[in-house]
């Protein structure tokens, strides 16, 4: 009895997880193999790989996959790198440090859609305005670009820019506290031994804050793979037509498209996304074991 007492305490949480997480996950997994499942009639035609075959050959899915992967590959390293640089510089200044910390943290507490509005002002061309960025480009003698409905690279640039900007506050916060927790005694020891600042950063600071960095990289990957609302905030709800859909967006569209939607296709796409995120996270954890120092 004593052995199972612990589980008794966990029971409420486990029951909650089972109902709202594990059951749906299994359900989605089953749907993804049921061909043409209809939630209205609770019926399907057959069982097999058909849904996966369809989704993988759907150009919208391929587009969403490319968009998502690009977003992940570009924004995770850049946002982590910039955050590290800013956090490091924040520890170096003494005057106005808390002011700057507050400023850098503001985007975190600002509503996504409100930020989307600001980006509209910056990038969207309207009959009345070229958008602030285009005005700047014109001043510098460049050609205005339609960032919202124009070429793919321009739209991708805006999406990446937005994503980096919105995730940085949290990363700066985590890294600032990680840097502050490094015992200054290590720096004093390194200084007495004549270590250059760059070497101190690379050989001492970075390894000592590596757990925080890897935490941010892993959650950053997962977060970027799940991106959806940012694209909606910038490009509206018809993302497929705009060519800017993400994988979560594709799943969402599949659920509600053409009235009844296609739960089977949506499930297959969701399982594919799950598999990708799982693989990347496992790889991340394996790599991090080698380079991360936990005290």
């Amino acid at each position, binding site marked *: 009895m004593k052995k199972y007492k612990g589980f008794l305490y966990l029971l409420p949480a486990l029951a909650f997880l089972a109902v709202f997480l594990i059951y749906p996950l299994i359900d989605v997994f089953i749907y993804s193999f049921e061909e043409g499942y209809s939630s209205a009639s609770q019926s399907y035609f057959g069982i097999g790989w058909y849904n996966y075959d369809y989704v993988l050959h759907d150009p919208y899915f391929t587009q969403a996959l490319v968009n998502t992967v690009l977003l992940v590959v570009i924004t995770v390293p850049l946002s982590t790198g910039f955050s590290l640089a800013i956090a490091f510089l924040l520890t170096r200044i003494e005057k106005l440090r808390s002011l700057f910390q507050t400023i850098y943290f503001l985007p975190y507490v600002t509503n996504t859609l409100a930020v989307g509005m600001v980006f509209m002002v910056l990038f969207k061309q309207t009959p009345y305005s070229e958008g602030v960025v285009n005005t700047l480009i014109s001043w510098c003698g460049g050609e205005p670009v339609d960032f919202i409905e124009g070429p793919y690279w321009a739209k991708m640039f805006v999406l990446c820019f937005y994503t980096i900007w919105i995730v940085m506050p949290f990363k700066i916060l985590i890294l600032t506290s990680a840097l502050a927790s490094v015992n200054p*005694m290590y720096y*004093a020891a390194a200084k*007495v*031994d*004549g270590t250059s600042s760059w*070497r101190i950063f690379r*050989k001492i600071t970075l390894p*000592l804050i590596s757990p925080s960095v890897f935490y941010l990289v892993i959650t950053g990957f997962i977060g970027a793979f799940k991106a959806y609302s940012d694209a909606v905030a910038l490009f509206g709800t018809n993302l497929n037509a705009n060519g800017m859909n993400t994988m979560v967006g594709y799943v969402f569209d599949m659920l509600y498209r053409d009235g009844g939607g296609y739960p089977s296709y949506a499930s297959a796409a969701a399982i594919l996304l799950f598999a990708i995120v799982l693989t990347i996270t496992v790889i991340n954890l394996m790599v991090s074991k080698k380079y991360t120092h936990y005290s």
Partner: protein
Amino acid sequence: MKIGLDHLTKSFPANGRKSKGKDVIAVDDFTFTIPDGKLVGLLGPSGCGKSTTLNMISGLLKPTSGKIYFGEHDVTDLPPEERGVGMVFQNYALYPHMTVEQNIRFPLENLKGKDKLSDEEMKKRVEEAARLVKIDELLDRKPGELSGGQQQRVAIARALVKLPRVLLLDEPLSNLDARLRLQTREEIRRIQQETGITTVFVTHDQDEAMSISDLIVVMKEGKVQQIDSPQKVYDDPANAFVAQFLGIPPINMFDGRIQDGKLWIGPDAVLAVEGLPDQQVAIGIRPEGFILAHDGHLKNKMVRTEVSGRDISILSTNPASRSPQVRSILSSDDLPFIKEGQADFDLKPRKVFLFEPESGKRLRGTLKPLDQTHTSSPEEVIEVELLEQAENR
């Protein structure tokens, strides 16, 4: 190489309400030359400026004024890396993510230009340093897997591997348990003597400072109180602070006076005084300065005795004592002579020091026993120490 400190002063800008806009002077006009190849202990209570002094020698802190010389060379404005100092920090500051070998090797990898070492040379130097501190078995471990004493040795090896001209140790033993502390301080002494490197260490523990230093610098509130050999600091304190700071159990302080060539504690004349005018004085008597004597000159009220086997302590009270109880340490042979109620003592003159009551400045006169008829241990009575009148110690 000798280290010269010339009117070294460090003040920190006022910070917080307490200081009321006044700068905090951590080290005040410290002038001293640390002789070549000696082990010098900076001793004092916390906040006395000893660590600040060490950090100025290392270059981690810039002095507010004054100069620091290594040999004849002025290093005051040199950054730490150009001074050639090795430093061991209180918590060792071993890089936790590196192995012992990488830790010791780290300073060597910083060398550039003509000092740059090849891989084999570095390996050789690391091994030499590890062998010196006897940790050559532990090179592959991480600091977290080592005991406190082993970490301490790694820290010393890392400080010594680049063959510094000066070795600085900040509270090197304070994180070790009592047994390891004894062992490690011997080890530090051995390493210092084997390498002959000028070494300065900081401690608040008098035992530590007394046991291994060639010279002790006693500091208080940024000011140097006394610089002498360990025994001299104990036997001939420069002022009341030094007398009270050194010695376990601490010295017993009394209020007394000099009158008619005698030293008085309350109604008791205890010693004869020569060379000092009549005045009020503070009297310090080391615990071992008491001689239990039937009808002794100092009349104390007995509280109780403590027996430790080798010796005994008598705790007694005297109205003139500055502390609630007077502790005297006697040989256990005296045990049969202890009586209830009364504890009468004669005093050993060279264990008694006189100070100015307010400033605590040492008053140097000649103390002698009053007479020899009542004492129980006659060999002590003949002992008469002539203290020289010494100015500017």
